[in-house]
């Protein structure tokens, strides 16, 4: 699926920046450093914004396009930040059959964002994920790890209220 690119301005936090510095200097001279650094950078920032990719390119002395090519090739990388609350809707077979796409549609409708996007206030992000192994509860979603099962679209309003 085509990678979405976040339009939300990048907010740098000195803490995270320092961690990235550590990561880069740790792996800089290992062969295949780019993959390792991108993975750890995503752990630090939750995604791989342009500013972070530029910094990695500069410090590894490689082209930005090389970094970007890798970051858009692998599905594990995201160019969109995770919200304060990340909502993951399971699109595995069981959930799908039980109407997961209706749950996703309702969330999209409520939040004004599609899958792999983040609301402008940074509060919510939405992910369409693979099977999370809770098929008995299908259709299921998680919000920052908290599981909500046997969902109906009408449940969504009430659940979201809790996080506002």
């Amino acid at each position, binding site marked *: 699926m*085509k990678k979405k*690119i976040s339009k939300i301005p990048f907010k740098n936090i000195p803490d995270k920046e320092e961690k990235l510095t550590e990561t880069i200097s740790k792996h800089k001279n290992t062969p295949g450093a780019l993959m390792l650094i991108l993975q750890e950078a995503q752990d630090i920032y939750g995604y791989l914004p342009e500013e972070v*990719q530029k910094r990695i390119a500069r410090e590894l002395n490689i*082209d930005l*396009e*090389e970094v*970007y*090519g890798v970051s858009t*090739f692998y599905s594990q990388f995201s160019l969109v930040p995770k919200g304060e609350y990340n909502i993951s809707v399971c699109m595995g077979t069981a959930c799908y059959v039980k109407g997961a796409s209706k749950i996703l549609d309702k969330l999209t409708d409520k939040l004004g964002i599609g899958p792999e996007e983040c609301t402008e206030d940074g509060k919510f992000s939405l992910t369409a994920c693979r099977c999370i192994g809770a098929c008995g509860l299908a259709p299921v979603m998680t919000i920052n790890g908290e599981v909500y099962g046997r969902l109906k679209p009408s449940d969504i309003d009430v659940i979201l209220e809790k996080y506002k």
Partner: protein
Amino acid sequence: MKMVNLKIDGVKVSVPENTTILQASIVAGIHIPTLCFLKDVNQIGACRICVVEVKGLKSLVASCVYPVSEGMEVYTNTQFIRDSRKITLELILSTHDKKCLSCIRNGNCELQKLCSDFGIDDENRFKGEKIRFIKDESAIHLVRDNNKCVLCRRCVAACKKQNVGVINVNERGFDTKVGCAFEKDLSDRSCVSCGQCIASCPTGALSEKDSCDEVMKAIYNENKYVIVNTAPSIRATLGECFGMPIGTNVKGKMVAALRRIGFDKVFDTDFGADLTIMEEAYEFLDRFQNNGKLPMITSCSPGWVKYCEYNYPDLIPNLSTCKSPQQMTGAIIKTWYAQKFNISVKDIVVVSVMPCTAKKFEITRENQAASGFPDTDISITTRELARLIKCANIDFELLQDEEFDSILGDSTGAGVIFGVTGGVMEAALRTLEEALEGKPIDRVDYTEVRGNKGVKEAVYNISGKNISVAVVNGLENVPEILDEIRSGESKYSFIEVMCCPGGCINGGGQPIHNSYTRQINDIIGKRMKAIYSEDKNLPLRKAHENQAIKMIYDEFLDNPGSEKAHEVLHTNYTKRNKF
């Protein structure tokens, strides 16, 4: 060297080990078709057009990357292979826009040729979803139309080879596309406009921004005085667009064609090259004798200059402040020439024919308008000139030779060799040596700086002083020389850099040849030969012997490096941010 014996389609060949099947097939006189392969640029076995059968192997192998081995038996033309190639082509076509008739590469497209060769009888055999791409027309010199892209990655490899690397293959699977990071326009990235990507594209996905209509509009406007000048290397390549052998010098026919098209004056950028040498040689002398910034680096290759501004801005003081021959020619036309012949500057349109797409960028640079109007108004490539000629009902091959118009059509061998790597250095040395010695010198040839090596170096003892020079052939070789300057270890006084490998004769605006032609011909070598043989046959071969130049210094510029010369012929550079 260990030799390996194998049979290709029954033909016995013996080739060095580690040769690919594709290379060995050339020795056997067999032409295996390719699409993503481009000699010295891209060798990745991605497109599956060059597949062959190897006896004993279950599946087809990509001959461009598969090495030969002892006793190997290769088949290149079985039913299985043909079917496979045909299906590959049909699948490529399923996402291609197939608008051949309006394509800039119609008649010179590798995909089109393969479809013809393999008897594609239904270009819509596989129908399915298609991505509609918006053309990237942001850059001043090129257009990217991904609707025609076959994802061969030749442009990506060419850009990387130039040490520029502003395009890559992004996304994956069906969404795969070539472009810049974060969906940026090319104009927002540190592209140097060299056009090597265009020259490597097998289809019409990349092309120069065409200015033919703009040129004809000026010519058809009776109030405009349209003056054309052609770069040194155009005469050595233009004939290729009309089926003439690579390396044919078509100077006379080119001039005749330009007159037929309707230009009011046909001048030679070689004149501007001679003038550049006057200014550049004396600029060097001044720096050399008065403890100026050394090494001095040449500035006539706009791709190189832009690269320097992006990647080595700290070395901008090392760049010669001389404008390029294109801009010097334009500047003199719009100042001295306009005054002398009483032509209103605002009515003059200067058109330059260049081997180069970066020249389209150069004419828009700051401080390139000696008369108050841009030194050059329109810059077209060799390919665009060929289009103008074809459109003007001219049978190029039948044209009788004609001469350039006088004064600004006068040039010497020094100007001609600007078209090849090492040429600017050699031309400068011819003038430098006489200036330093203060007397005529017999030596004309400085062969140490000739040839197609990546870096050439030499030391010349002139008037008791050692002058150490280097010639950098293509951006690929820039870091090794420039990093030395940065670290203070450079031993050179004078460095020539040309952006494109081989120099202007292989510029991004030159005629495009298909992968096979590039594989079996030394294109750069043949074009180089045409340039050096013209130089050899000219009566005058040193820039300072050019009569027009003497006249212009007498009447207008005083001396090389004078205040007036600086006002008209010199410029400045700016640091550019890479991201």
